[in-house]
Every structure is written in structure tokens, then in C-alpha cells.
């Protein structure tokens, strides 16, 4: 159901910290941003709890917010079960942040069909240490080099390409480029850089009623099928 957003108050954006810079570019005085630990993507059940708690708190302040926007996709069902309270909750109709970074679901789909074995990197993910090389270092520190090599191989053996998505939100892109290239060399994968149009990030903040967004009225619950054409 598409419903109008409340007239009074600010917008509150609750986002994963890996998209913080991409969203922050569009913030003005009428919008607040609160970021959450990127590690929540590993435990989808905790993601919904953390976001719901913030939604409940924000909704309990009458007139404080006119909409709560989630800077998340379906994220492995991490947002399933979230309930809008008195303030409408807006969420982009995408599977995960790769669609956000690439600008559309269609762009992600095209890349997935062309090269399903793609490991996507963005400056935000690199800053959080979510690269194959960082993972390897972590595994090696815990379990030694031999096990680390085996684990990384099992995890990534079908990958063929590393893509750095340049969303334009980071000025020092050259240093991220070097890291992404090094990771590709480390794994013996091809390397590519893609431009990430900021379309969806802009819509998230400035155009929350766009058809790319799901708008949940009070009492509505986010369900997986809202993101799937079953």
C-alpha cells in the first residue's frame, strides 16, 4: 500500500555504516542520519531487532519525524519483520546494498547475469576490512596460514572477478583502487571498476515516495515477498 508521508517533522534515516558517506551527501537540516554496525549483515535476526528498537524510540516522540527511511535492502531477510509504528517506514525495494551502490536493481541483475562470480568492493566495505585479503589475515591470525588458505579457497573458489564500485562519495578513490587491485591479484581474479550512479541514495533521502521505495504505513510489517515477484 502506498501512503502519504506525515507532513510534520524531520526524516530519520537509519542506515548501514557502509553506505554512510553515500547518503550523507544528500543530507540537509530536515534529515537526520543514524548508522548501524555493518556486522549486522552477518546476523540478520539481530539486524531487525536493532532497527526496530530505533524505530520504536523515534516513533514514540510525537511529531518528531515524518518518515523513517531505511538505508538497507532486504539484506538476507535482515529487515523482515520490522513493523512501522506511528511514523511511516520507507525502504528501497532492493535485495542488498550492491543494488544501492550500482544505482538500480536492473544494473545489479545485469552484472549478476554477466558475471555471477563477482566480489564487489566499495570504499565503505574496504574501510570496514571486508576484503578477501583482510579476511585472510583474520583467518590466519586465528587458525594459521594453511587453514586460512583453505577457508578462503572454499569461500571464494567460484569467484572470477573483483569489482570496485566508485560511487563518487570518496575523494581518495585511488587508494581504494590500489587495494581492490591488490585483492584481485591476491586471488588471481580479473579486476574491473564500475561507476555507481547515486540514483538510489538520492531517492532515499530526497524522493522517498518514488516507486523504487516501499512505504509501510503504521502497523505494516516488512515481508520477504514484497521484494520478490513470486
Amino acid at each position: 500500500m502506498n501512503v502519504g508521508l506525515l507532513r510534520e517533522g524531520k526524516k530519520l534515516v537509519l542506515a548501514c555504516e557502509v553506505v554512510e558517506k553515500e547518503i550523507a551527501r544528500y543530507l540537509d537540516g530536515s534529515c537526520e542520519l543514524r548508522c548501524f554496525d555493518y556486522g549486522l549483515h552477518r546476523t540478520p535476526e539481530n539486524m531487525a531487532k536493532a532497527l526496530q528498537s530505533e524505530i520504536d524510540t523515534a516513533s514514540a516522540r510525537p511529531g518528531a519525524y515524518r518518515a523513517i527511511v531505511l538505508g538497507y535492502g532486504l539484506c538476507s531477510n535482515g529487515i523482515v519483520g520490522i513493523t512501522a509504528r506511528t511514523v511511516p517506514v520507507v525502504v528501497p525495494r532492493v535485495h542488498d546494498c550492491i543494488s544501492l551502490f550500482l544505482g538500480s536493481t536492473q544494473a545489479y541483475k545485469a552484472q549478476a547475469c554477466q558475471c555471477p562470480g563477482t566480489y564487489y568492493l566499495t570504499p565503505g566495505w574496504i574501510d570496514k576490512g571486508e576484503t578477501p585479503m583482510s579476511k585472510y589475515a583474520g583467518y590466519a591470525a586465528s587458525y594459521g596460514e594453511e587453514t586460512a588458505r583453505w577457508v578462503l579457497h572454499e569461500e571464494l573458489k567460484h569467484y572470477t572477478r573483483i569489482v570496485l564500485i566508485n560511487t563518487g562519495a570518496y575523494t581518495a578513490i585511488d587508494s581504494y583502487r590500489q587495494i581492490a587491485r591488490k585483492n584481485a591479484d591476491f586471488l588471481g581474479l580479473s579486476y574491473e571498476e564500475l561507476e555507481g550512479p547515486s540514483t538510489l541514495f538520492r531517492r532515499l533521502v530526497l524522493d522517498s515516495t518514488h516507486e523504487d521505495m516501499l512505504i509501510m504505513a503504521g502497523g505494516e510489517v516488512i515481508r520477504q515477498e514484497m521484494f520478490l515477484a513470486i
Partner: protein
Amino acid sequence: MLSNESAAENVLARLSHAIVIRDFVAVRELTDGLIQAGVDPFRVLNYGLIPGMYEASGRFRKGEFYIPEMLMSSRALKIGLDILKPLIRARNVNDAGRVVIGTVQYDLHDIGKNMIISLLTGHGFEVIDLGVDVSPQKFVRAVEKNEARIIAMSALLTSTMLHMKATIEALRAAGLGEVKVLVGGAPVTPIFAQKIGADAYCREAYSAPAVARKLVGLDPNAF
């Protein structure tokens, strides 16, 4: 030697724990010890190895385990299974039929699928592994060629799991609607499985053998 029942139970519990703590040597020694003491291999499987994987999977969901721990627990499971398999085969119980398995089109994540292969082969199934990124047509051809009773599909991504539906439709179009469809993978839910017309859903890898046996009309607890 295991002089009594409580001693056997104690060793089975230690075996489960060895799976959780990824102690490969202990898994081998405890499994060997139980077999030598005359404990039924299916009991070792279902009351030693599988509960260990159950615990490991739970820890993974809670974020206490990450990929390395899960992979190592799977490897520990396989060490135990490899000891049991010849004994299970000797009992001539490899009669559950053939399962064709793969990750769906555009999905390359096979850690869960590989775990299921180990478990199903340990429970009397012959498994034909089609690997990763398996198109609906490839699934259909493999089901036809192998006269499979079950097709098992997994996906890790919500963006790829809809290919399960496409595969089920391709099976029906090919006149293979009687083949049982089993689906699983982190983003798959019972509601999704039902909506796409799957016959069964597995939340965790360790539950696959019982679900698969039930699907083909065998007693899920016979092992």
C-alpha cells in the same frame, strides 16, 4: 571399551562436542572407538555427528561462528562420515534413490550444499552433484538422465532464489512433476518454499537427510 550404555552416551556427547570445537583428531578417534565398541554406525551418525552439526549451525546463526568455524565443523563431520560410510554401505541400505543437487542459476555459494551432499550420502542416497550456477535446463536434463527421485536446490542470495521457482516450472514443463523438490539456503523460508511449489524445505543442512527420506516414503528415523 564401552562397558555400558551411559559410557556410550558419554562418548557420543564427546563426539558431538568435537565437531563443534573442530577437533579433527578427536572426531576420528571417537568415531573409530565407538565403532570398535560395537555401537551401531547409524547411532554414531544420528546421536554423535549430527547433533554436533546442529550445535555448530546454531552458533553460526547467532553470529558466534563465522565461515571458518562452520567450514571446519563441516570438515570434522566429513571425517566421521567417511569412517561410517563403508559400514553403512555394507548394510546394503543405499536404497533411498538418487538426488540431483546444485546451487541455483547465478548463485555460486556451495558451502551448505556440500554439507548436505555429505549428509545425504551418509543416509543412503546416491547424490549427483551438478555444482554451482545450475540452470533450470541443466537440472531438468540431470533429473531425466539419472532418474532422480529428488531434486535439491540451494541459494544464498535473495536475488537468486527465485531461480528455484523457474526450475520447478521447467521440471513441470518437462513432465517431471512427480520428482520431489527440496529447497534450502539462508534466505529461503517455509512460506517461500510453499509459494514456489517445493515439496519440502530445510532450514539447516543437518535436517536434510530426514526430510529427504520422508519425501521418498522412507522412515526418516530408520537410521
